[in-house]
């Protein structure tokens, strides 16, 4: 069931994605990409994934855009004279069309939102255990947080170290000794 809000969001996301691809001016393309990130964040909200939506809004629409803008100011910006839109690269278009068709092919296999028969429930020993015991065992109401920081905390510590290592790696690659 697609509501009017869903439909409007999907149209917005598709339009901003197409604008990102076809706008000739790189700066306009970056701004369209930021709009795409924001639209996608709202799609995540409608899909009841607020954690992903927060990350998408901050990283996809915010940080990525600023990094692109930073890169634009440090490189030459190609002249955007002439038409607003680029011509269509037909070979690339063909590859994208095939890829999109392959992805759309899988859509009917995705269970409906909230479907009690969804495969995520195929492993009730784990999933139902978390739902039943998370509050009693960890004292937090958000089961996602309970899994991330308690049940699977070892993985999360590894992830935190990976993020830290990414910062160190950038300094090493840039031959810098300090961030700021």
């Amino acid at each position, binding site marked *: 069931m697609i509501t009017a809000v869903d439909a409007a969001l999907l149209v917005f996301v598709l339009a901003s994605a197409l604008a990102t691809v076809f706008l000739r001016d790189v700066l306009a393309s970056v701004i369209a990409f930021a709009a795409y990130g924001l639209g996608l964040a709202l799609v995540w909200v409608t899909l009841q994934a*607020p*954690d992903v939506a*927060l*990350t998408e809004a*901050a*990283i996809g629409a*915010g*940080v990525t855009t*600023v*990094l692109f*803008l*930073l*890169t634009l*100011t*440090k*490189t*030459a*910006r190609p*002249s955007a004279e002439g038409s607003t839109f680029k011509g269509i690269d037909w070979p690339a278009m063909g590859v994208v069309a095939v890829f999109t068709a392959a992805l759309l092919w899988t859509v009917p296999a995705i269970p409906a939102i909230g479907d009690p028969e969804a495969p995520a429930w195929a492993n009730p020993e784990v999933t139902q255990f978390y739902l039943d015991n998370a509050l009693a*065992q*960890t*004292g*937090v*109401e*958000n089961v*996602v*947080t*309970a899994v*991330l*920081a*308690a049940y699977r*905390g*070892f993985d*999360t*510590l590894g992830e*935190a*170290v990976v*993020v*830290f290592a*990414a*910062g160190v790696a*950038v*300094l090493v690659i*840039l031959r*810098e000794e*300090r*961030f*700021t």
Partner: protein
Amino acid sequence: MSGDTGRADDNSPGGETEATRTDGRAAGAADPAGEDERTERRRPYTESSVIMTTVQVVAPFVLTFGLFVMFHGADSSGGGFQGGTVVAAMVLMLAFAFGIGPTREWFVNSAVVALATGGVLLFAVIGFGPMLLGGGFLEYSLYESALGIKKASKYAIEGVELGIGAVVAGVISGLFFAIAHGFEYREGEK
């Protein structure tokens, strides 16, 4: 929070962005900025009172929201990673509005490094702590039974979330400054 934005503001007026970069390596960046016509390379920063005022009003709320998401990850959606990205986005927003140079002076390197390393250490200490008490890794309930801290498990998880938030906020804003600096450095070199 208002003190933070106020400090960034102090550095901004008068278009002294280039001049406030006292760092020797960054100073070289001033030269290519003068070659705008030839290279079509635009100035990295243009002062806009609309953007500065808007950011000055919005930034404290964004920082509060980021901290709320971080602190409240145990009971509502969000958590350390999400809150950290929001806080980092606020730092980038300040740099966007007031110029990278003044923001860099305000958000010094030791603060970035302290956030990133402190976050990892906080997570590790909370995670490995129960092992010192004779339990297993992440066995938060030991804090309650051995040390008598009430709701120890919940506070430990929130501490872990704060650690993750600090790592993410520190590294993302650090990446931003490092990348900005890296380009300036190479421009100055040639």
